[in-house]
Each structure stands twice: as structure tokens, then as C-alpha cells.
């Protein structure tokens, strides 16, 4: 509840948006509430579970502890921006094929964290994957198949010929 809102300009999934936000509003609230990008999920609200992970200016962030106002002038990538024309990218496909998706509530954040990991380290070791995803909680899978999915995605990117392999 503030007397004034702040007008920010933010590029979300390559689309420039002008948004009026509250000073105390988080990036997560803005994405879900004002832009209807509900693929990004809210769980802990304190930056511990990773369900709300998005990429902001090339960095993976917990959008529940970033103020919307801080995103002024930034580029944000959410789960909705990963797929091309509704078709899953190779990482998303790998999550499906490896059985890394159960209830799916952690999945968008997990995929964004994995996306960030692979952007910065296209050929991670298993240890590096476990480290890279350690800030994202999942209660369904036990993580084994998530790690496999990221390995598979990294491999499929390394071998373009096998990209369409299911």
C-alpha cells in the first residue's frame, strides 16, 4: 500500500513491457500478477527453494526476493520464453524424456536454473550439475532423474545429429 507506484520498463521474454509497480512489489508478483506469466511459481517466498527462478540480465535469480523496481531496464527470461512456438526446447524435452517431471511445481524454476547452468557451462560434470541445482528444491523426484535430464540435454547439445532422438 503506497501512495505512489513506480513505472518501470522491462524486457520480458524479448518483449518490452512498461509496467506500473508498487515499491514493495517483487519481480515474482509482477510477473505473475501483472503480466500473467504464471509459469514462474511461488513457494517459500524467501529465496530458499528456487521455484521462482528466472534469468535476469544473464543471471539466475530468485524472483521472490528481487524487487520489481530493481528489474527496471533489465532483460528477464521466464519459463514461458524458453519454448519456441509452444514446442519444448532440448532441455525441456530432456526433462520429459528422463522422467524428471512429477507434480511439476518446481519444474519451471528447476529448468531455468538448469538453463542458466548450461549457458555458462555447456558440459557440466555430474558434480557441477548437483552444485548448480542445489538451490532448487524438489519434493517428488529425489533429483536423480533431474540430474540425468540435464546431462542428456548437455549431450544432445553436444551432438546436433542426435537432437531429434527421443
Amino acid at each position, binding site marked *: *500500500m503506497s501512495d505512489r507506484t513506480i513505472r518501470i520498463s522491462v524486457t520480458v521474454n524479448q518483449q518490452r513491457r512498461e509496467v506500473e509497480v508498487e515499491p514493495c512489489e517483487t519481480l515474482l508478483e509482477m510477473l505473475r500478477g501483472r503480466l500473467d506469466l504464471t509459469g514462474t511459481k*511461488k*513457494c517459500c517466498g*524467501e529465496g530458499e527453494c528456487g521455484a521462482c527462478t528466472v534469468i535476469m540480465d544473464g543471471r539466475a535469480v530468485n524472483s521472490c526476493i528481487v524487487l520489481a523496481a530493481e528489474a527496471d531496464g533489465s532483460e528477464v527470461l521466464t519459463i514461458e520464453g524458453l519454448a519456441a512456438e509452444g514446442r519444448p526446447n532440448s532441455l525441456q524435452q530432456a526433462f520429459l524424456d528422463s522422467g524428471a517431471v*512429477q*507434480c511439476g511445481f518446481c*519444474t519451471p524454476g528447476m529448468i531455468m536454473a538448469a538453463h542458466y547452468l548450461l549457458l555458462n557451462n555447456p558440459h557440466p560434470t555430474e558434480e557441477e550439475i548437483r552444485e548448480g541445482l542445489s538451490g532448487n*528444491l524438489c519434493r517428488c523426484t529425489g533429483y536423480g532423474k533431474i540430474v540425468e535430464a540435464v546431462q542428456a540435454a548437455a549431450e544432445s547439445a553436444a551432438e546436433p545429429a542426435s537432437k531429434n532422438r527421443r
Partner: protein
Amino acid sequence: MKQGIVGSSINRVGGLARVLGTQMYVADVKLPNMLHAKLVHLDCAHARVRSIDCREALKVEGVRAVLSAADLPRPIPRFGPTYQDRPILAEETTLFHGEPVAIVAAESEHAAEVAASRVKVDYQELPAICMVTQALDPSAELVQDPAIRGQGPFKNTNILDEWSFGWGDVENCRADTVIENTYTFPIVTQFAIEPFTFLAEPTADGITVYSAIQIPYGLQRILAAVLNLPLSRVRIIAPDPGGAFGGKQHPKLEPLLAYFALRLGRPLRLELTLAESFQQARRAAAEVRVRSGFNSDGTLVFQDIESNYLIGAYADIAARVVSKASYVAAGPYRVPNVRILARALLSHTPPSTAFRGFGAPQENWAVESQLDAAAKKLRLDRVDIRRKNLPGPGEVFMPHDPPADGDWAECLEKAAEAVGWGQPLPEGRGRGIAMGLKAGPTTAASYTIVRLHLDGSATLYSGTSDMGQGARTVFSQIVAEELGVALEQIAVVMGDTSVVPFDLQTSASRSTVVMGNAIIKACGDIKRQMAELAAECYGVAVDRIRVAPGMVHLPEGDHSFVEVLQDRFGRVKGEVIGVGSARNEYVKEHPLGGPPAFYEVVAIAAEVEVDRETGETEILKLIVAGDVGRAINPQAVSMQDEGAAVQGLGHSLMEQYILDAAGRIRNLGALDYRIPTTKDVPRELRSIHIENADGPGPYGAKGVAEGGILATAPAIGGAVEEAIGVRIRDLPLTPERIWTALNRPPLPD
């Protein structure tokens, strides 16, 4: 025709929307003109509320109303799945940390939050009962007012109910050696990544409530009773839960929200924080004392088990948890003499509810640890002592119940082999192995509809909740197998009581078996009708027609389903509707109200390494070998086993509510309540399926969703003991506990 759909690891149905971020969860639902609600609760457990002052809250811009007990009819409506003991708002006294005393409605979530913080509650904090010993003390204050307790023998105690089971004669049997220990299991929480969100929308003649509830028809029943509406006027929309694990089985705040929304005449949305969600659902803590008698060759002579479960301030489903788990507490073994006494103890803690394993992990922790203790004392191998006592397939092991319905020794052998049992271990490492048993569903009622459309595609309607276990996937596979419809042409509709037929509940790993059997019948109904249609259409006697998946065989040739439908219905069009149901009736004479439809049995093996300097345990291997009957989707079975095993790893090593003496939970939220991360789970996490097609479900399947959690703790406990030489009997096995155990002389067994 599709062949081999059953038994194949097709990808999760509904997975695509989940990876794209387009899956609609309850928190994603927005209703026009909706208000936002926020709970008012106190920072203590047990308190007498003297007054509630809403004046400042009502001044907040955008606030529309505040509801407290003063605004409710007396007696305040109470509800619950078995006992109607939980008030929709606390009636002058709060009984647990987080129990709401008021609720605010405002135009924005933020305004509701600000206003809730400005509701002034004048209250007096009272002493709390939050330990088993306190609850058992006959001089203790009563948690529940006897006036709401009905007429049972325990109404003037903190014992909600008590059960005695058993057979043989524990008092007068002779054993070579007797071992007695007490084991404790902490309060842990389901921690679904999706916190609770509810919406209630008044309609012209009733109400629609949105909740990620596992049992939409159970919620409908309770709301109809609280609101005094016919079932037909209460519509439940239950989007697929973002994880549930039993925590979303029974109603929590839906009755309050629905009541308030009707008063306001506007849609109302309540989203709980994760911390608040922890105050709505958790597992019962337990203290289990076991006296076990063995002969010197390791043969079990008796089990004498006393289990005290610390349930919460209201019953929820806890009585059923305690009775159902304790009934099979002696485990999957041949035990000639068994005596079981179990109690559900009320306390000033959040109501305990269903949680994967439904009380069995508490019992298995104790009883399996006793087998290890016996092996140690009798100098027997821990696998051998279990093998010696396991019944063979078809052997009766509980005198009045179904015999062993699988090859349980095979589970044990496979798990032992996979973990490298008997191979040399480096210093600081240990292995453990344990069996787990849980009784499957006793009563059941599942109804389903399958529509075969003109183009040969099919729509299935089911009241099952797909909370991640993959019910949509398995059901699609069954329809594909039975009707020969391609998977891409099957739609599965769930989660709306105005659309799907009745289902008793999604619980007890039942859906593949019970709903699966109903789906088989619905598909059979379609095939029967296809024969009739073909008979009419082609002028052939029905008894000369044979129907196979997707195909009708006539003496003069074959017709596909699509040909038959189009030839018969022509330009007027139509479709074939198959219905099916599966029921297991209530059996009055059976202590559980019916024999279990199957047993969920696993062997779990672990290898660990313990750092003696810090007390930290690293799990290197975790193996689940489950007797699954038939894996309709092997990958889905592995997904359940692995997830359950890691959830078990959580309560084994790190998870517990920390209460202060007044019953305040000191570690609400993800920061202070740790669950396993990618760095806590073993590199080797494996699921082995024992498949003998001996289950009661489709193609010989059994339920599989809970096995992996049943005996993780005793397997890890045994492994830690081998690594450090000390048995710890209190969970979780935190570094502090292990370090302390290492730095004091071990107690004799």
C-alpha cells in the same frame, strides 16, 4: 492396434504443460471480481482469546470485512473426515500454533496482509501439551473440551482413541532372547513445493470451491455439511496438485473460506505462505516401544509393540493413520505371537494428517531396528535374519488376513545384491537393509466413464487426483491397451465434481489398482456395445462377433472401431459411452473395516559414510526393491520409488519440527526446515521392480507410491550403526546426534 503399451515407459501425460510453464495450478486461477483473504493467527499454540479488535484493520484501504468467532453462529460449525471436531475458526481458545482466530478480506493481497497485521488480539498464552509423556499424564489439562468428544471411554483424557490388535500369546510364549527398546520419530511435514491456495466462488444457487485437494468428493461432502447445501450445489474444482503426499488429502481451510465467501457474496482467494502451510499439514510423531522375542537361530517368537502417536489438536485423519499402521506393525514377517497397543494422543500441535506411508514409517523404523538389534545379539547376518522370518508367496502371516501376496524374499535378495551386501567396506562406511510393509486400501469406490468418439479418439473421466504420481499416464496406458486407441488420442479429465463421477479418494496407493480396474470395466462396456452396434449395423448375430482393441472381428471380415461407429451412426452421429466401477465394501468384522486389497512391500538398502569428526552422514547408495506386481509404466514406478526414498532420507537425516515448550514451531519455512537437495541425495539411487503379475489391479499391478519411504530410516540407521558402531534410536540422525553418540560410551542393547 497398440501392442505393448502396458509395461512401457511412456512419458508423463501432462508433462509437456509442466515443462512449458502452462500447467494450471490452483494458485494460477484468477476469478473476476475476487477478493483476497489473509488469516490472523497468534504467535503461540495454546491461548485464550479475550477480545479481537478489528477497527484498525477495517480502516486499511481496500479492506472489505474481517470475520472472527464473534461473527459466527453458535455452536461454531466443526468439520473433519472422521471426527467433526475442528472449528472453522478458533472458538475463544486456540489449540495449535497457526490456528486462525480471524480472517480478513480485501481488494488486494497486500491490503489483506496489512489489515491482518492490524487486527488486535488480546489473548492469554496457556501452557501447551506437546510431548507424548505430557499427553499421557492423567493429570494433564485436556486439549479438547469433552463436550465435543462424543461418548467414548477416553473423552476425559488426551487419548483420542486406543487400539489393541494381535494374536497368539505374548505373555506365555518362550523365547531364547528378548530385546526391548524405544524408538522415536519426529514431527515432519509433507512440504509439497506448492503451498496451499484455495478459492471460493458463490454461485446463483450454491458455491464453487477451488482446491488442490486429493479427494474432491470428500471436500464436497464436508462443505455441503458445513454450509447446509445439497451435494449437487457444491462444485469442487481440483486442479492437479503441485505435490501433496497426503497433506492435501483432507479439507483444511476450505470450510472457512467458503463460509466467508458466501457471507461476502464475492469470490475469495486465500494463498498461504509456506510457513502457514507447515501449520496445516504434518506427520504424527511417534514413540514406539518394542519388546521382541527371538529363538537363538533368529526365528521371531513374539512382537510386543506399544505405539504412542502424537497427533494434533484436532483429529483430521489421524485415528485412521494410527489404527491402520499399527495393525500391521509386526511387519512382513511370520510372527506367531503379536500384541499391539496403539494410541492417538491429542496435543497442542497442528493436526497431523496423512503423509506418504500413513503411519507405517514410524512402525517400520522401530520394528526393523529391532531385527538389526537381534542380529547383532545373536551374531547373525541382517539379511539372513530377515530371510528366515519372511513368509513365502501365498503364506499366511497374519492369521485373519490375506496371505503374503508377493515374493517378498526376492525384494530382500535383490536389494542386498544391488547394495553390494557382504562386500568389503572401507573405514567409516556401513550398509543397512530393512523391509517395509504397509496395508493397501481396505474400502474403495471408484467410478469412471470412457467416451469413444466418432473419430476413434477417447475421453476418460476420473475423480482421481494426479498429484505427480502419474495417474493420467497410467490411465491413458490402460485405455490405449484396452481400446487400441493411440495415446495421443486419449484425453483424461479430472478434478471437477460437476464433470467426473464419484471416487472415494486418491490415497493408499490405490488409483492404479482400484480406478484402474474401473477403467478396465468401462472399456469392457465399450467393447460390449461395439459388438452390439456391429451386430445391428452389419446384420450379424452378436455371438458371432469378437471385439479386440480397436477392432471388431466379424465372420466376413474385420472392421475398425471408427468404421463401425461411422457405419452405424451415419450422418446423425453419436458416440459410445462406457461406464465402470470398482468397489471394496466395508467389512464390519474386520478391524480395519476390510482386508487390505494388497500389501505394499519393499526392501530398502543403503550404504553410507559417516564423518566421525562432524557426525555428518553421506548417503552413497539407496536402493528400493518393491514388490509391484506389474509395472504398467516402469519409469513411473521408479519415479515414485526414488522420490519416496529421498523423502524418507529427509526424515532419516534432517527433517523435524522444533517446538518450544509452549508448542510454538520454531523452524517454519524453507530456511529453517531442511529437506534434501541435490547435494544430499546419493549418486546411486535405484529402484528395482519385482514383477510377478500377482496384484489385484490391471495386468496384475499393485499400488507402488509409498513403498520407498516405508523403511528408509531403518536401512539408513543400520548403515550408520555399521559405520560408527552405535545404534541411534531417535530420528532424525542429525550430525549432532551422531557426534554425541560417538563421544559417549555406547549403551548396551
